[in-house]
């Protein structure tokens, strides 16, 4: 089936207006030797009834989270989504509209993005944020470009404890400009950034990019290394992948971060096999003109009514072309709008409440079986094992318990499993995990 509304008579009338005899004459400008002149080799169209039947079958081949005891994290978290969010975001005025270049027709989108910017800046304790990047990984890569442009330096420090896929994306982007990447290891005991190694490599670097809490769930202490980074003229760039953590731990603005990037998947966007979600990029007011992507500002209309519009579009590709701060055009606007609605539904109380529950469940695990590292945690941690990671992961999988094997990315971490906790987990599920895993645990710091 298709969605073309034209009757045969309409088509004939329009061809007559154009003085054409057939539809084929609409394509006489396409050279004959380039014409396909056959049907595309894809299936014939189907009806909506058939499509629903078909897609439900395909969806059923996937195993949803409710079929497991679920402790998967690693940069994608299963959080609760209030139905009110799904309902509001599916208003056609939001999802079928275009980028709000025509501000008078787009005050809904623009005001929500402004509210998004406000809420996110407050959460991060930063001056300005854009209206989203593709995801946390590309946001980190763009933060690296920003830092190199600002400092005019061409080597960047990246923490080994940053999400492995983020490091892969940063590497891909860095190669395009010949940026040199230096990996900063983590401390083998605490799991936190190795400050001695940082000190040795920080000279002449554009920035330090580190995740907080890091990939192992460990909360960093940026207050300790911030002076080191800034004294060498480099920029401090924390990557926030579980933003619920900021309800409890120090936000980047409180430890003098220059650029902050990360991922907002936790805020009502769902897992979706990894996307779409929304990355973000925030900075200090000094650097607003270096910030890629769209930014909304407050202004007024001809009658003086408060109104919103994009600002500083001269940074962007549609005006500046080859000299733009970035090539980004489409972003993840609808996801950013979802985040604004989600945070509004939760409020400060709700945000803190969810963060506390996540933290509480992780506390139970740490108390019972310890943490691989001595650093403190938020909602994710490594459980130390007396056997190899993949073996224990598989044993748990047989019992319907899903956890991550960190040795998939970190060869040296072959005696631990990575577990994450959210408000979707019940306490009894956590105790079930503990019961199943107890015999494989190597007790460390308890």
């Amino acid at each position, binding site marked *: 089936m298709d969605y*073309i509304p034209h009757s045969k008579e309409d*088509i004939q009338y329009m061809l007559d207006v*154009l003085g054409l005899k057939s539809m084929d004459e609409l394509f*006489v*400008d396409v*050279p004959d030797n380039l*014409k*396909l002149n056959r049907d*595309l080799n*894809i299936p014939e*169209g189907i009806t909506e009834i058939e499509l629903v039947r078909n*897609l*439900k079958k*395909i969806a*059923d081949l996937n195993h949803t989270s409710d079929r497991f005891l679920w402790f998967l994290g690693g940069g*994608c978290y299963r959080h609760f989504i209030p139905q009110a969010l799904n309902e509001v975001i599916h208003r*056609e*005025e*939001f999802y*079928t*509209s*275009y980028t709000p270049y025509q501000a*008078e*027709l787009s005050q*809904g989108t623009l005001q*929500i993005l402004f509210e998004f910017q*406000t*809420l996110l800046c*407050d959460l991060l304790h930063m001056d*300005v944020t854009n209206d989203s990047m593709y*995801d946390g990984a*590309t946001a980190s890569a763009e933060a690296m470009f920003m830092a190199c442009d600002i400092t005019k330096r061409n080597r960047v420090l990246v923490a080994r404890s940053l999400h492995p896929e983020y490091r*892969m994306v940063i590497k*891909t982007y860095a190669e395009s400009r010949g940026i040199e990447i230096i990996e900063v290891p983590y401390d083998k005991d605490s799991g936190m950034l190795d400050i001695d190694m940082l000190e040795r490599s920080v000279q002449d670097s554009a920035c330090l990019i580190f995740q907080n809490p890091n990939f192992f769930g460990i909360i960093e202490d940026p207050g300790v290394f911030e002076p080191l980074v800034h004294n060498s003229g480099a920029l401090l760039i924390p990557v926030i992948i579980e933003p619920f953590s900021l*309800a409890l731990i120090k936000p980047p603005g409180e430890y003098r971060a220059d650029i902050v990037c990360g991922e907002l998947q936790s805020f009502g966007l*769902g*897992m979706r*096999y990894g996307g*779409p979600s929304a990355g973000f990029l925030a900075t200090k007011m000094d650097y*607003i003109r270096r910030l890629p992507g769209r930014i909304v500002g*407050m*202004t007024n*209309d001809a009658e003086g009514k408060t109104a*919103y519009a994009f*600002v*500083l579009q001269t940074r962007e*590709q*549609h005006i500046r072309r*080859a000299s733009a701060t970035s*090539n980004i*055009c*489409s*972003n993840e606007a609808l996801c950013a709008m979802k985040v604004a*609605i989600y945070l509004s539904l939760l409020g*400060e*109380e*709700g*945000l803190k409440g969810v963060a506390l529950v996540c*933290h509480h469940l992780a506390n139970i695990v740490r108390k019972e079986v310890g943490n691989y590292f001595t650093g403190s*945690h938020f909602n994710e941690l490594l459980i130390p094992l007396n056997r190899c990671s993949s073996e224990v992961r598989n044993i748990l999988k047989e019992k319907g318990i899903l956890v991550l094997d960190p040795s998939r990315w970190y060869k040296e971490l072959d005696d631990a499993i990575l577990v994450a906790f959210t408000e979707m987990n019940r306490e009894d599920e956590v105790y079930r995990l503990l019961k199943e895993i107890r015999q494989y645990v190597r007790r460390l710091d308890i």
Partner: protein
Amino acid sequence: MLEGSIFEKKRTRVTGYIDVPEVKLEIPEDLLRESSLKTFPSLSELEVVRHFTNLSRLNYGIDNNMYPLGSCTMKYNPKINEALAELDGFVDIHPYMDEEYTQGALKILYELEGFLCEITGMSAFTLQPSAGAHGEFTGLLMAKAYFKDKGEKRDLVIVPDSAHGTNPASAAMAGFKVVEVKSDERGLVSPSAIKPYLNDNLALVMLTNPNTLGLFEEDIGEIAYLVHKAGGLLYYDGANLNGIVGITRPGDMGFDIVHLNLHKTFSTPHGGGGPGSGPVGVKESLVPFLPVPRVVFRDGFYSLNYAFPKSIGKVKCFYGNFTVLVKAYCYIRLLGREGLRAIAEIATLNANYLQSRIGEFLDIPYKRLCKHEFVASLKSFRSKGIRALDVAKRLIDKGFHPPTVYFPLIVEEAFMIEPTETETLDTLNRFIDALREIVEEVNSNPELVREAPREHLIKRIDEAKASRTLRVKW
């Protein structure tokens, strides 16, 4: 009625979604948050729902009326695709689950890749990029890796002056030097324009076909021959595929790298600016450089394969904007081969009909058979003190979303109009009438146009002030 800011609303009792137990923090005090979240609202669910519902009424979507934005392909977004992409089986799955638990997701990725290969005439696709510009960047990085692998140093990218802004921006971001070449008097890229650059420094020529004037680049066969002979690659910006899908394929035209905008031709909605999806297709010689992982199908089992040593790596975390890809998959299944070709036919018919009728009262500088869109110039209104922007704003008073204005840059006071295939003849006629009325107003009462929108709830917005004062949060 306008809707006040959520930050001005009186605090009420918050709807609590979860029960919070007594929790002892296991975090050292000096790592704890000090500042309060002073802007966070404290509202009941109804208050929040009302706020955002009221805001939605200040927006304009395709379901409201025609959206003739050139190069944006604002067509109807079938409702069923939205619903199916939200099935638990697609939303409630984690990217690091074992492949045996995600066979459905992998099947969609695998089959969609196959469909896109056939539609474009390419050998393989990556579905990882999140948007058209992201796809461009990915494609350019693959070209870079390809030349490096061949031991060639080529750093020049040619784009025509009619190109989308993302083309030069992406090329610069990927570390190439960009040269802009002029379109000829037909509005096309002529082979002679690129001839001066056909040497061993030429990396790529980036073209959009049909181009941003809506015209088919008729010399594409010769251009492809020349570029390849010089050892360069030809890059296809797929933003304008809507006018030729099923008729001709970029792969057959000689393009080596293709990106598509699934939120355009394949109707996964624009979402007010995203999420989109920008898959990139390549010919056989570039396949080794595609991002990882790639989905493979062996012995009835789909899996993710990372073992491609020449790959450029990853351009995004995980595997792409998955639920957007589900919508594109649904769209292609619904329409099928005959429905896809009908898109190009009717989109082209609608655009030519509009061009012909609007050409009766507006100047169309490159007037010839167009494809999905065409460009008018409102330069003659300048003597009345009227700009293209004013006419655009007056269209809002008449109930229409304006076309793309001031693009492409090669047409003064450009009005770039793309109707798509889902608009009826009657709607096109109403749009023509509205535009004709405005042209009459320009002559009889230009104030009406200069001060537009006048009848809309929100009057002309002072955008310059927004950039001057830079108030970017509450």
